[in-house]
């Protein structure tokens, strides 16, 4: 067991063996508005491998959320395709789960019933659903709040419920759109650590959008830097820092080096937007 874990280092360099989980092929998305056509994504291609943790950074409005919504099947690409496990994505599917920035909890359901919603959609009902829901809540340390309504929780707790609910659907790919964007710095680092722990345990394929370069490096094996409008992939940076990682990792020389590198690209793009 131990051996297996040691040999199974999914360092970015050595990850070539894993099969492609999500394939994004030449995706173009244009929105038509009052001022004519607006190109949000201009030919994006990307392979996300199984068990891979990918973070996306880029200036505001470069199409990160649009790309996530297309992978989730909530938006249709104008041209190009997305494949998940080799199957063409045509709408939402339970193989892909989403965590939204605005939590998107059902306010009329208690914490436990929010998680049960996901289970019931999988056809799990009654006692079994009750017990399973508590298990998922245990993972995010919210058992004590099972019977509270979302309005009674802090932002960090709400996002934990949203994560538990997404996990309860047992998706194979987890798509997260700035899930910690609305949280204060302290809660944010705490949730980062929790997510890291979870991912190191189950290695679920993750596609994670963030504005925070530190957050991207600490979490991901690959950081995708997107360019300003129209959105394209500017550079893919391999993060060759081994797991397990923690907040200390942010002090390491390699981390700072990568951070400088990514910052310089993002900054260029930012200047590009200002022009």
């Amino acid at each position, binding site marked *: 067991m131990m051996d297996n874990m040691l040999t199974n280092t999914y360092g970015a360099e050595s990850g070539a063996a894993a099969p492609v989980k999500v394939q994004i092929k030449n995706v173009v998305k244009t929105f038509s508005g009052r001022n004519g056509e607006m190109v949000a994504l201009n030919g994006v291609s990307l392979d996300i491998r199984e068990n891979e943790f990918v973070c996306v950074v880029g200036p505001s409005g470069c199409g990160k959320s649009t790309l996530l919504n297309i992978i989730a099947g909530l938006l249709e690409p104008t041209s190009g395709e997305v494949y998940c496990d080799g199957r063409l994505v045509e709408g939402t599917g339970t193989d892909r789960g989403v965590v*939204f920035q605005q939590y998107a909890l*059902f306010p*009329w359901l208690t914490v436990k019933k929010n998680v049960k*919603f*996901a289970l019931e959609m999988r056809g799990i009902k009654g006692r079994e659903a009750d017990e399973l829901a508590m298990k998922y809540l245990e993972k995010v340390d919210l058992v004590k709040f099972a019977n509270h309504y979302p309005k009674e929780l802090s932002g960090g707790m709400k996002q934990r419920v949203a994560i538990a609910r997404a996990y309860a659907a047992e998706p194979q790919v987890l798509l997260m759109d700035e899930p910690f964007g609305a949280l204060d710095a302290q809660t944010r680092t705490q949730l980062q650590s929790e997510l890291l722990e979870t991912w190191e345990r189950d290695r679920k394929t993750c596609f994670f959008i963030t504005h925070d370069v530190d957050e991207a490096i600490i979490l991901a094996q690959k950081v995708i830097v997107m360019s300003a409008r129209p959105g394209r992939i500017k550079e893919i940076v391999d993060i060759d820092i081994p797991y397990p990682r923690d907040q200390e990792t942010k002090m390491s020389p390699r981390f700072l080096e990568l951070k400088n590198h990514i910052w310089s690209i993002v900054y260029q793009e930012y200047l590009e937007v200002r022009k």
Partner: protein
Amino acid sequence: MRNNKNSWSNKIPSWAWVILSFIAAIGVWYLLSILPKTSRAFPFAPTTIDGLLTMMERGVFWDDLASSLLSVVMGYGLGFVIALPVAILMAWYLPIRNILNPWIQFIRNIPPLAYVPLLVVCAGVGRPAQVTTITIACFLIMCVTIYQGVINVDETLIKAARVLGAKNRDIFVRVLAPATLPFILTAIRLGASVALTTIIAAESAGSQAGLGMRIRSLNASFENAAMLAYVIVLGIIGILLEKGIRLLEKKLTGWQETIK
């Protein structure tokens, strides 16, 4: 609002405030009953209660109450039954919205009293015209309120349900319905108050009995005590309905974020 935590007014429990407010109202009523300008319209409590008892002895009060309530319940119920599907259709289908909405807004701004005569011409004197008047008034306010609720459902909640595997039916029953429930309850509350305030206009359509019709006839025969009693009865029915519905709202939609 000024609100000093330590002021004496915070130390009085809320039930005591109800009593204080009641005593104040009785005081004002007494003043009105002795001032020369107002004393004829506002006889004091004992006289007013006598007036009400007289109406009961004459055997008209309960008939009036029953007749008015029947019209209110029928018009209100019909108004709701029509408003709910129309509001949902308006929210979901653009053509229906674009054609209906301007006219709903237009008619909503006409006082019912103004169009009652038109309804009498069509529906005839009496109950049918009364019920139609209340139905229209209730429909308009409830339709607008429910429609606002349906179009304001947070889209991310629908997306969240979809990515969890919800089908259209699940979305309707488990997301749209509970998300609009607060607006439906608000519509029910506003509709009740509109139904009651419209009863006076509705009964001008001509009726054998009814609180509104009786107020008119007591006015003509200068029986001010009984008239005042009827006005107060209308107010009591209104507040009881409102309180009841608010209780229901609290029970069913306690999960809502409240802005304090």
